[in-house]
């Protein structure tokens, strides 16, 4: 990397002709289709290479219609003013779990296309992402998509965008990404409305923002950057200002959307860097890349070490899979710097890992990928958030595993993470949804009317309360129509207790959870009842107890097995009978032993699902 002198490289586009933007939208509002259409219009992809939804490359992303990784692409757009513009579209993760990544991707842009489905209107995710874009000072171009649908309600949706989001539709476009209608108009708006990148006047030290990275077994860590000042070239020695890592650049290039090597990346440009860095942990999203020698420039704003918000223990169903699980988690973390895992052990589940996630979706994705891509059978424990536990004497400890909660007598108070949730629902469901929110210890702070049929509730709730099945309940009370998104919203003190489950008098650590005192009893009863259903009868009665400290608050008993005997057993039966018994023994071995009690795998799953 070099300070910019008089030489201007021919491949570096003039700043005035660069437009960096992202598209933000709710799931299924047509983000990928719009991106495809832009690629086609700019001839960025040969028609023979074209397949729908080009930018979502993971199977899971395609299936769920969500974007997990950034998929940048550089396009050359021939505008009506006769000039060719370099468009850098940075397709960002759409979910709030990845809001830090989203915000870093946004920091690489000057504009955002806010896409709303003309038949669906503004949804919760639209709201959350529009707020994020506004916080990042992006020029927002509102776009109403699917205007060709017979059920399109363009005027109504325009009104929502103006009223709910406060964005002037006079600056917007009406398109159909499917038919291509309105796309050119949108492209022209991007040229006119998205400001060109700004840069320090030369000469100045080079700076580039890291907005994502992927791990490649052959090339090491491929870093996605937006150059802010100066140039980066192969051969430059660079330093990561946040982590201090020094490396040599081996290759730079653009996304077309495939990697296309180039001589250099200039100010305002978006591209990738392959360097001598092999270790994903050495690259942090939001970090600044600068020259390794010369004056150290100011770090670009916004870099922070992100901390997981949701934790869960992940254990192999079969203990022999421990190493396989460990290797799989290691591979997953290569491409996901936000995912963390450390070894832990549980009395009930044996050896496994405490895993940290950005949120629920992140957790689900990792679990799903472990099962699907890595073929490991796993049991995961009840998800937990990070509690701030204030001890006598003012010490505060972070607790992400209920089993590690300090002794109750030493605890002054506990704080739990809160969220601000945006729930959009039909008018007729508002009562049910408010009840659901209150049942989850939330309060509705604000109610906005979106249109004649829909309202948006802004609520403050404990994160803990939406971890397991909130979304299922939301969908069920609203017949699938309600949508929800959230942002983190600090911590609040709360009357939390540790609920333990005892089997035959022994505490099963994997079942312990922190829960609000008001809910402990009903939750305890549900867990005991659920366990009674799945734990087989033993030769002795098995008491199942839910307890807070030493106080038992719920109890069930699995009655002792009374009769288990083969009536007829003559000589010819002995081998067959022994084999039958051996099969039973094998089945029993697959269960987890808690003291003298055999607990089947399903118990761990069914208890997690036995929510309120």
């Amino acid at each position: 990397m070099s300070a910019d002198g008089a030489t201007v490289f021919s491949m570096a586009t003039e700043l005035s002709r660069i437009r960096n933007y992202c598209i933000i939208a709710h799931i299924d509002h047509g983000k990928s289709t719009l991106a495809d259409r832009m690629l086609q219009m700019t001839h960025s992809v040969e028609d023979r290479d074209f397949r729908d939804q080009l930018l979502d490359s993971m199977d899971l992303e395609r299936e769920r219609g969500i974007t997990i990784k950034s998929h940048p692409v550089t396009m050359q757009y021939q505008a009506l003013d006769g000039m060719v513009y370099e468009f850098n579209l940075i397709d960002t993760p759409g979910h709030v779990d990845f809001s830090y990544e989203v915000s870093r991707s946004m920091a690489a842009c000057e504009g955002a296309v806010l896409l709303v489905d003309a038949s669906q209107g503004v949804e919760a995710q639209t709201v959350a992402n529009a707020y994020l874009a506004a916080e990042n000072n992006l020029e927002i171009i509102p776009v109403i998509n699917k205007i060709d649908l017979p059920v399109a309600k363009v005027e109504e949706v325009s009104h929502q965008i103006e009223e709910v989001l406060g964005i002037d539709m006079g600056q917007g476009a009406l398109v159909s990404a499917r038919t291509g209608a309105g796309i050119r108009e949108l492209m022209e708006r991007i040229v006119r409305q998205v400001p060109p990148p700004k840069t320090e006047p030369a000469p100045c030290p080079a700076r580039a923002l890291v907005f994502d990275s992927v791990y490649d077994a052959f090339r090491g860590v491929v870093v996605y950057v937006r150059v802010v000042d100066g140039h980066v070239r192969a051969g430059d020695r660079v330093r990561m200002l946040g982590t201090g890592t020094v490396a040599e650049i081996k290759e730079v290039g653009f996304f077309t959307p495939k990697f296309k090597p180039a001589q250099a990346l200039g100010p305002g440009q978006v591209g990738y860097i392959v360097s001598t860095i092999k270790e994903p942990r050495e690259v942090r999203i939001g970090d600044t890349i600068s020259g390794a020698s010369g004056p150290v420039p100011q770090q670009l704003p916004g870099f922070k070490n992100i901390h997981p918000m949701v934790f869960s223990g992940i254990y192999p169903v079969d203990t022999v899979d421990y190493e396989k699980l460990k290797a799989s988690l290691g591979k997953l973390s290569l491409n996901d710097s936000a995912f963390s895992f450390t070894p832990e052990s549980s009395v009930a589940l044996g050896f496994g890992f405490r895993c940290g996630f950005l949120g629920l979706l992140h957790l689900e994705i990792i679990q799903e990928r472990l099962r699907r891509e890595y073929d490991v059978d796993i049991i995961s424990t009840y998800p937990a958030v990070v509690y701030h536990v204030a001890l006598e004497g003012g010490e505060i400890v972070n607790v992400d595993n209920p089993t590690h909660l300090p002794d109750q007598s030493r605890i002054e108070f506990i704080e739990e993470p809160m969220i601000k949730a945006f729930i959009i629902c039909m008018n007729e469901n508002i009562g049910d949804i408010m009840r659901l929110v209150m049942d989850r210890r939330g309060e509705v702070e604000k109610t906005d009317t979106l249109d004649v049929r829909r309202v948006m509730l802004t609520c403050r709730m404990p994160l803990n309360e939406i971890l397991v099945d909130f979304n299922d309940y939301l969908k069920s009370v609203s017949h699938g129509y309600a949508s929800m998104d959230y942002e983190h919203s600090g911590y609040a003190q709360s009357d939390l207790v540790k609920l333990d489950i005892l089997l035959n008098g022994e505490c099963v650590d994997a079942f312990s959870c922190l829960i609000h005192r008001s809910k402990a009893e009903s939750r305890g009863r549900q867990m005991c009842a659920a366990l009674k259903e799945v734990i087989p009868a033993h030769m002795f009665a098995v008491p199942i107890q839910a307890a807070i400290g030493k106080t038992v608050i719920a109890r069930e008993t699995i009655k002792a097995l009374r009769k288990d005997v083969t009536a007829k057993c003559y000589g010819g039966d002995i081998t067959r009978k022994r084999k039958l018994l051996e099969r039973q023994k094998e089945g029993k071995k697959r269960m987890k032993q808690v003291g003298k009690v055999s607990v089947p795998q399903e118990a761990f799953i069914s208890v997690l699902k036995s929510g309120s």
Partner: protein
Amino acid sequence: MNSSTSLRPGAPPEPAGIYVHVPFCDGKCVYCAFYSVMLDPALADRWLAALELEMRRCALPEPVETGTIYVGGGTPTILGSKRIERLCSGLRRRFPLRRNGEWSVEANPGTLTRETLETLAAAGVNRLSLGAQSFDDRVLLRLGRRHTAADIFRAFDLAREAGFRNIGLDLIACVPGVGPRTWQRTLDSAVALRPEHVSVYALTFEEGSRLCARSPGARLRAKPDREQLNDLRRAEKALSQAGFRRYEISNYARPGFECRHNTACWRGEDYLGFGPAAASCSGLLRWANAPDLASYLAALEGGGDPPREFDELTPRIRAAERLIFGLRMLEGVQLEAVGGFERKLEPLREQRLVEIKDGRWRMSRRGLDLADAIAVELLGD
């Protein structure tokens, strides 16, 4: 001795008990999962010839004495007296019974004739196991039996007249829909006949039986455990009051009339089985003939061994087996015979499922009701 050895190395030093499986019936009872086909005279004759070939292929010296013979099935008594005579003389030639040896034959009340009984007695058969099952005609019908209570009385009297001094009755307990009074009447009737031996088997839903094959709607549901235990307790009470001693989970006998053949099997002694589906045990080696008459006939008529499945036990599994099946008997297992299993037995003793008495491990009363669950604990490393 035949050079084509059917018996692998480790042939029993002691003559083993002999079992013959007669694979013919005149119908199928609903609970039965044993191998049998409808009686066909031509097939029965070929089976007899093949059986003789199979016995001759056995690696033991010919003849060799045995302590017990058990002819089961199927329904041995439907073979008719001619074939029974041939079967018995073949057995006698090959495996002559020792002095005071036990020779049992299973019999069905519906097909037992005076002639058959006299043939059996003349051949040296000295124990009859009569498949009574119930003394209630409606219950017999429901079980798919093809005889009545009157047939049992008749067959029993005929057997006594033919000279049988050791007769066992089989009864089926825990039949759904049979209340305590009906069950008590069956027990009383059985006791009134004054047999030497009574087996009381709780109805089992065996895979492969018609009970299990019934369409879900028509399926009988097993009685709840509590009711089953009540039925079995009632049987134990009635039989012990009548002078029978329970010596195995499902078996009761007047002192000295315990079935020696079965007792030897439960103690883990060797036995040799002949006929389709028959199983054998010799040291660590087990084998069972395929349950298929056609391939059995074809193989033996072609000069070979019938298709068999072999299974070689490790000494540890063999020891576990002896323990598991030994504990099913009330006499239990000698302390010194359970080396290596104390670690597993002790926790069971703490739960009062097994106990040590007179230098032997035994199941407690409650343990006898939970023998399978205990066996699962004892198996494995």
